Structure formats: structure tokens, C-alpha cells
């Protein structure tokens, strides 16, 4: 039963299922070493219909420009990581292309790769941020106790539902790009620049995105340029589709982090001062490094209010594939460190972690790193008391502590248990210095037949967001939900609504829909139909980072969350088994509880995976061939019960983003639980049961 195939322009078909008549395939020849100078590329004699594409063949600019970074579309002189694209091979038969690929010889004068990042050299620093609040020096002098800790997180794979790629097809005089991207206009602008053509000659029509985990912001643009080059140079529709192995080994992953904290406590155990050094390993070419680093610095105190603060942040270049954005976007690294520190202090002081935190929670009026005071009310205390009740936290924590102390005195064969709690917030409408610097637009049109069309380039990863947009519009205009549609994304016909990342689909796009619908409502009986209205988002003043200071208000609103993770360690393998996860969320008005729960549950699984399973096997700057086969995904069979509670909301409350919250709270809650179960510090994720087991018996 073959499907109807002439669909290369259809919107709801995944990229890997798209074909076009006469389509050629494109494969990538990659750099064989981590670092060096290309001395020669030897291409065998190619059969008729096949073509090699080198950097010199690029008609426009050989660079992808993003946020002040230039990333080569094809490496010309130097390679910065093993697997960097050096040459493309295009032709009709994938099997022939594979054979040809294996015969191309890329000679590189190899240089010693830079892989060390925890202690880095000044040349490696690509971004630096620092800021001070209060008087840290004086506060340290007055501190009764000073403690230090280092918190590490490793890289993680986004694991998109289909490997990345792009298709370039001709539609009369236009080149149409199909790819799964979070940022269609970025794809268009890059392809235009690489081909050296006008913007209107390139149209981007995205394919289904799945759950992007913030990893499809810029890399799809690289692949789109590859497909576009092949299509234009060979004059045929062209598709590049990475294999799972290629995607796993050579495309961007989550940044690795090391956060060093030095904390000062007064005699009552109150945290009065914190000094933090954040180091992010962003691999080669890390265009989002500034965004990650700023969020990491701004959220360095987690859910805590600390009056004296010094933060230094460094994004560091290494010769691994690009490491960068992932759900939790920078803040996740800091929150893991800050919340783990909070649990550690409580544990050292033999206090209940919730009670200790209650004395430190960020509240309305708390000083922020930027010098401003928090304008929003926070709900951490209420969240904490609800979590305490739903998870029976105090009792379990207390009894686990007793067992832990006894365990260190005598060997027990019982599976050790632990329970941990952590809090965090998602910053809605955060001032991303560069990513959100444009003006972004949404257009809605009320037609004569009273149907309403929302026109935006924002990409919804799942049906939930689309449903919220439609409900918002329907509610304002009193139009039946069934009459509200969202136009297919096509850069030729929809306005640029910016990158679809973090909570922007809610905090920016949904508000623009609201505003444009309100504008239509006000004209509804005064102007004839159709009425179209455009709402434009002008970014607030971005934060100003200066030497040792940052100025401005860092976000529009907060979504607060707390998480409890309970686990036990398998007596034999010492691998964690998650017994339960409790989340309590204050996400403003929840438009669809069903979708919200679905999003939080699936994010919880991914966040847990990062805590003890998903280890990227980097060896000497590269991921081993077929590393994917050994990538430890958390399967549904191991999924714990996930209990989600929302704080009550009213219909007038604003919608807020909540999808990131599990990535912000769960790692620290997990680490604290693992620390209780294992007696280890819980300072490094992912937790390695096998290593722990080995540590139990000295040889």
C-alpha cells in the first residue's frame, strides 16, 4: 500500500520519508583527526553523475554566521574536531556514495588537540562573564565556616526522533529547504548567504521536529547549506540524511560543566556568601556559548537568596564536536551545583534540607545578581510543603539518614535508599543577549467565513503548544476552536517569530497571538472582514555585562518548581533504581493539564537519564564508532511513578513555560538521593554504579 508520494513539499512528513523525483543523495567526508591543517584532499575519479563539493566550490560565503561566530560550512584549511565536514559527495546511489566516501583521503598535518578543559589556558576562553553582588570579601571574613565543593555534569545526546538532515528541492525559481529546525529563518539566512542569493530565493518549510531538546537551533542550518550546495551545483534536488551513528558522533551535544563553589556560613548556618566559578566545555565552535554562560551565571544561586555573591564564568573551547545547548540551557548546570550545595550544607549540619532551604529561598524583593530586586512572588515554600506531604519526604529522609549512619558502622546487604529534594525556576522571557535580539512577529487573520488563521514561524515540537495557541485565540475572539488553524510554516508566507526555544512559544509567541487577537477584537465590528493583525515583540533591553557587573532585569517572570527523587541502589550492580519522582509546579495558568503533565513526564525521564544512564563515551575527543549502541537509555520498563502537582491557578494568571523545569530540579534531587544512598558526595553526574561498586572493595 504505497502512500501517495509526491510530497516533498508537504509539512507533516518526516524528513527521512521525503523523496523527490530525481533526488540525489549527499554524504559527508569528515576530518580524520581532532585538530590540524588540511594539506590535501584526494578524491578518486568519480563515476558519471557524481560530484565532490569542496569549500572552494561554495558560491557565497563559506560560513554560518550566528551570534558573532563564524562556523565553516566545509573546513577549508583547518579542522577543529574529528568528524568536521570537509567535503561533500553527491550522487544518485547511496551505496555508491558510501563506497566513494571510504576512498576519499583527507590528509591533515595533525596538531596536538586541546582536550583539557577543567584547567584551561587563556587561549581556550571564548566567552567570559563575571559579576559581583554585595561584598563577598567582607562576608567571607565574617563567615564562621567556609566550605568548598566542585560539581560536574557530563555531556548528553539529544537523541532526536530521526537523525538530522535536510532536503533541497526546486520550486520554479526558488530553492525550498526542508529540515527539522527550531529556527526556520536562521536556516534561510544561512543558505542564502552560502549560495550568495537573495533571501526571497530561498524558502524554508520545516519538517516535523519531535522533541528537539534545544539541539536544533543552529546545526540544521549547516546541513541545509550542504543540501542546498549539492542541489545548486548538481542542479538536482538533493538530500543529506545523517546515519544515527554519524548524528551521534559528530553533531552538537550538551556542554560539559564544572562549577566550583566556595560558600560562607554564619554561626547560625545561614549562607551569607557564595563565590562561584563556572566552566563550560563547549567543544569546537560553540555559537551559543554566551547564552549558556549567561544563564549559568544568572541562576548560580538556584532557589536560594544569597546577599553576597561573586560569579566568574568561562566558556572554553576544546577539539571535540560542538557542545552546547540542551534543555535547561546553561541554568541546569548551575542549579545542579547550587541545589546540591544546599543539600550538602543541610546534611553536614544534620538539618532537614527543606527546613534549611526555607530560610534561604528567593522571595519577592531578594537581591539578584544584576543588582535589581526580584519583582515576582515565589512559591518555593508552598511547593516545599506540598512535596513534603505528597512524598513523605521528612520521614523517609530522616529514616534513610539513620540507616546511612548505621550502614557506615556495619556492612548491610540491604539495598541502600536515598531521597533528595531540589528546587529551581525557569526564567520566562529571559534576556538572551543575542538569540532574542531581533523583532519577532505573529500575524492572525479573521476571515470572512469567521475562520481564524494564526501565522507564525514558531515551531511547536508537539501538539500541546499548537493546542494552547489555538485555545488562546479562540478564547479571545469567541471563535469555535475548530475554526482556528495555524498556517504551515513557510518562510515565504509567515512572519519571522524567532527561534523556538525554551519557553518562547509560550512567553513570546502565545502573547503575540493574544495581542494580535485582542487587536482584531477591538476592530471586529468596525472594519470589514477579513481583518489581519500583526503583533511585534520588541525585545526588552538586554542585560549589560560589564567587567565584574551585569545590569538589567534578567527575565519577565518565573515558573517555580520543586522535585523529590527517591531511589535505591541495586545491591549487586549498585545501579540506581528510581522508586518515585514527585514534582510540584507553579507554572501560572496551565492551559492544558494533560499536555503539561505529558511534557513534564517525558522531560523527567530525559532528566533522569542524564543523571545515571546517558554517558557519552568520549575517548580522546571523539565518540567511538557505534557508541550509540552502548548509550544507556532509561527505558519505559524502568520508568518510576511520576507524581505531578500544580499549584492552584486562576484564569487571569499568565501562561508560563514549564517544560525545562525537570531538567533544572531533578539532577540535584537525584544527586542528593544518590549521595544519601551511597555515602558519596553526589558531586558528579552521571552517577556510575559500576565505579561505585569497584570502590567498595580495595584490591
Amino acid at each position, binding site marked *: 500500500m504505497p502512500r501517495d508520494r509526491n510530497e516533498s513539499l508537504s509539512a507533516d512528513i518526516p524528513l527521512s520519508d521525503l523523496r523527490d523525483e530525481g533526488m540525489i543523495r549527499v554524504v559527508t567526508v569528515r576530518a580524520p583527526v581532532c585538530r590540524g591543517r588540511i594539506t590535501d584532499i584526494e578524491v578518486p575519479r568519480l563515476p558519471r553523475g557524481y560530484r565532490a563539493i569542496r569549500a572552494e566550490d561554495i558560491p557565497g560565503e563559506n560560513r554560518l554566521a550566528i551570534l558573532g561566530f563564524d562556523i565553516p560550512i566545509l573546513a577549508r584549511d583547518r579542522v577543529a574536531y574529528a568528524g568536521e565536514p570537509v567535503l561533500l559527495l553527491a550522487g544518485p546511489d547511496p551505496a555508491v556514495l558510501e563506497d566513494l566516501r571510504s576512498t576519499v583521503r583527507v590528509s591533515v598535518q595533525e596538531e596536538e588537540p586541546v582536550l583539557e578543559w577543567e584547567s584551561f589556558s587563556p587561549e581556550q576562553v571564548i566567552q567570559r562573564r563575571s559579576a559581583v553582588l554585595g561584598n563577598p570579601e567582607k562576608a567571607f571574613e565574617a563567615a564562621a565556616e567556609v566550605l568548598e565543593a566542585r560539581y560536574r555534569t557530563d555531556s548528553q545526546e539529544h537523541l532526536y526522533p530521526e537523525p538530522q538532515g535536510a532536503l533541497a528541492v526546486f520550486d520554479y525559481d526558488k530553492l525550498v529547504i526542508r529540515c527539522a529546525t527550531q529556527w526556520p529563518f536562521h536556516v534561510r539566512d544561512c543558505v542564502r548567504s552560502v549560495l550568495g542569493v537573495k533571501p526571497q530565493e530561498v524558502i524554508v518549510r520545516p519538517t516535523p521536529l519531535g522533541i528537539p531538546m534545544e539541539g536544533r537551533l543552529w546545526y540544521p542550518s549547516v546541513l541545509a547549506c550542504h543540501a542546498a550546495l549539492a542541489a545548486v551545483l548538481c542542479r538536482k534536488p538533493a538530500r543529506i540524511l545523517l546515519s544515527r551513528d554519524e548524528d551521534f558522533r559528530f553533531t552538537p551535544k550538551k556542554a560539559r560543566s564544572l562549577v566550583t563553589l566556595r560558600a560562607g556560613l554564619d554561626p547560625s548556618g545561614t549562607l551569607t556568601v557564595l563565590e562561584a566559578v563556572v566552566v563550560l566545555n563547549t567543544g569546537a565552535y560553540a555559537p551559543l556559548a554566551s547564552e549558556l554562560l549567561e544563564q549559568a551565571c544568572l541562576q548560580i544561586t538556584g532557589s536560594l537568596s544569597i546577599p553576597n555573591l561573586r560569579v566568574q564564568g568561562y566558556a572554553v573551547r576544546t577539539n571535540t564536536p560542538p557542545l552546547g545547548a540542551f534543555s535547561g540551557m546553561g541554568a541546569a548546570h548551575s542549579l545542579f551545583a547550587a541545589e546540591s550545595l544546599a543539600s550538602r550544607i543541610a546534611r553536614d549540619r544534620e538539618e532537614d534540607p527543606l527546613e534549611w532551604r526555607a530560610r534561604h529561598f528567593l522571595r519577592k524583593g531578594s537581591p539578584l545578581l544584576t543588582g535589581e530586586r526580584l519583582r515576582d512572588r515565589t512559591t518555593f515554600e508552598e511547593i516545599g510543603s506540598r512535596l513534603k506531604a505528597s512524598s513523605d519526604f521528612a520521614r523517609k529522609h530522616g529514616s534513610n539518614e539513620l540507616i546511612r549512619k548505621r550502614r557506615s558502622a556495619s556492612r548491610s*546487604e540491604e539495598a541502600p535508599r536515598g531521597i533528595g529534594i531540589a528546587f529551581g525556576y525557569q526564567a520566562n522571557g529571559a534576556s538572551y543577549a543575542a538569540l532574542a535580539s531581533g523583532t519577532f512577529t505573529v500575524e492572525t487573520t479573521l476571515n470572512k467565513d469567521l475562520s481564524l488563521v494564526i501565522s507564525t514561524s514558531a515551531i511547536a515540537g508537539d501538539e500541546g503548544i499548537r493546542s494552547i495557541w489555538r485555545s488562546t485565540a479562540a478564547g479571545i475572539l469567541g471563535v469555535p476552536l475548530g475554526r482556528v488553524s495555524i498556517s504551515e510554516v513557510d518562510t515565504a508566507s509567515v512572519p519571522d517569530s524567532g527561534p523556538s526555544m525554551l519557553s518562547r512559544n509560550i512567553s513570546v509567541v502565545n502573547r503575540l497571538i493574544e495581542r494580535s487577537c485582542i487587536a482584531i477584537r477591538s476592530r471586529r465590528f468596525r472594519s470589514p472582514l477579513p481583518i489581519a493583525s500583526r503583533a511585534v515583540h520588541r525585545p526588552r533591553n538586554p542585560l549589560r555585562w560589564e567587567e565584574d557587573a551585569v545590569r538589567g532585569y534578567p527575565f519577565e517572570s518565573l515558573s517555580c518548581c520543586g522535585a523529590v527523587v527517591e531511589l535505591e541502589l541495586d545491591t549487586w550492580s549498585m545501579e540506581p533504581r528510581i522508586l518515585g519522582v514527585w514534582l510540584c509546579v507553579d507554572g501560572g495558568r496551565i492551559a492544558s493539564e494533560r499536555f503539561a503533565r505529558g511534557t513534564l513526564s517525558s522531560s523527567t525521564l530525559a532528566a533522569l537519564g542524564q543523571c545515571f544512564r546517558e554517558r557519552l563515551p568520549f575517548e580522546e575527543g571523539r565518540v567511538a564508532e557505534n557508541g550509540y*549502541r552502548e548509550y*544507556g537509555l532509561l*527505558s519505559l*520498563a524502568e520508568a518510576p511513578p511520576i507524581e505531578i502537582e500544580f499549584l492552584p491557578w486562576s484564569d487571569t494568571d499568565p501562561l508560563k513555560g514549564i517544560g525545562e523545569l525537570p531538567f533544572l530540579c531533578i539532577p540535584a534531587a537525584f544527586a542528593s538521593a544518590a549521595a544519601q544512598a551511597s555515602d558519596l558526595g553526589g558531586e558528579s553526574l552521571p552517577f556510575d554504579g*559500576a565505579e561505585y*561498586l569497584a570502590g*567498595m*572493595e580495595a*584490591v
Partner: protein
Amino acid sequence: MRIDEVIVPATLSEALSALKRNPDAVLCAGGTELFSEGPAGPADRNRTLISLHGIQELRHVSRTDLYVEVGSMTTLAELLALKEGFVPETLRSVVHGIGTFAVRNLATLGGNLSVTDRFRDCFPILACMDALAEYRQGTASRWVNLNRLIGPRGTPEMPRGEILTRIRIPLGGWDLGIAHKLGFPRINSRKSSLFVALARTDKRALSDIRILYACDRALRSREIESSLAGKKIPLLPRDIESAVGAYADYCSHAGIRESSAARFLTLVRRAFNQLNEGVTA
């Protein structure tokens, strides 16, 4: 995947004749190992392949009071579908931890026992149970104790040019039956390892104990096992310490990585403790 020729025999005798004609042929059972995309291996070279998937007589399962006999082409799913108690529970739990239900619909017991790069999940438990494997070549057949397929360096030494047809698994209760995979469930990783400990007691004395740890190689010391036989249960702390010490020496002679040795010793100690707890309970 480059395969010159595939022979799909319908009967065992056809398979044996095909193997005689093509002694270098690769035997394919469920194909889950062979067709997993991996670094250049046998499947990537031009080879003749004999697929055993169509041979019904290799899927036969039978049981007597003393043993259960499983045809080598019995899939892992079929093994799990047997009624409870038909095969030893410890084996069942090991099989349940292999792949997903869909992979187990393809993977076979014979295939699992025949992988040559490192021992797969079923091997350690069956070796500890003294399971026998029947190998056929031409008109000849022989039964081999699985322990004899562990080479002197602890790595697999699987017969070549013969077809594994049946596995005979002795029945008989074990007072202690432990089989644990270390590492991630469902994944065949170079980093995962398997620990098996079986023990029988008789009149509060240890009558038989077998401990096998399979990491990048299989570690089993008959000598230490014999030295433990006859010890009173519960084992005294000094017995445990001396056995763990003996295993530590064994590991250092075997030259395995320190971390692997440390894991092994922790597990040995745990197995002894569990044995004691079981008896006192």
C-alpha cells in the same frame, strides 16, 4: 552488508552438508548479533552464510527429571514463554534481561552461546550449571561441557565447523542462585559484566559452590570452589576473608583490570553474605 551466498537449509542434515561443503561459512542463528551494525566484522566481508532459522528440529524443547534440553534455535522469547519452572528460574531471569521483547523474538539461545568476541549473557549461568552443548559435524556429534569453551585466557573458544544443535541444562535445586548483569540492562556493552554464584548446602555444610564472573573474559577458580566445599554454613568471617583473599590473588594472576577485580571481589563477598543470610533465615 556483503554476503556472497546464503544457504537456508530446511533440515539439520541439509545444514550439515552445506557446512561440509563450505567449512568457512558463517553460521547465522537469530541474526541479532550479526546484523547489528558494528565495526567491520564477519558480516561485512564477502562470506557464505548458512542461516539456521528455518530448521524446525532445532527448536525442540523437552524435559526429563534430570535435565531440560533446548534446541539451539529456540528463541529467547520462546524460552520465556515456557511454563514457569520448566527452565531454572535463574536462567529465566537472565534471559528476561536480554534486549527487548522484540529482539528476543529473533535472538536464539544457540546464538547467544556462540558469540565469539565475548561471552554473552546466557553463557556464565549455563556454564555454572554445567550445561552441555551438543555439536554436530557431518554424521558425528559430541556433547561438550560449556566450561570447556572457556579458553586458557578466559576468552571464548567456540568450536568451528560444527553446528550447535542442543543445550542440555541439568535440573536440581540450588540453595543460592545469583545471576546479575552489571552495567545497563538490555544493552550489549563492552563495559558490562556478569556475575553468577550457585551453591548447594547439605546438612548445614556447603556441598557445592560455583562462582563465575564474566567481564572481558570469564573468571572461575575450581580450586577456590573446592576449598570452600565442606565448610560449615553459615560461613565464618575468617572463611569469607580467606576466600575473598584467594579470589584477590586469583584476579591478580589473571591480570584483569583493577576496577573489574574490585567489582568481582565485592560481589563474591555479597554472595557469601547472602548464602549465610539464607541459611540463618
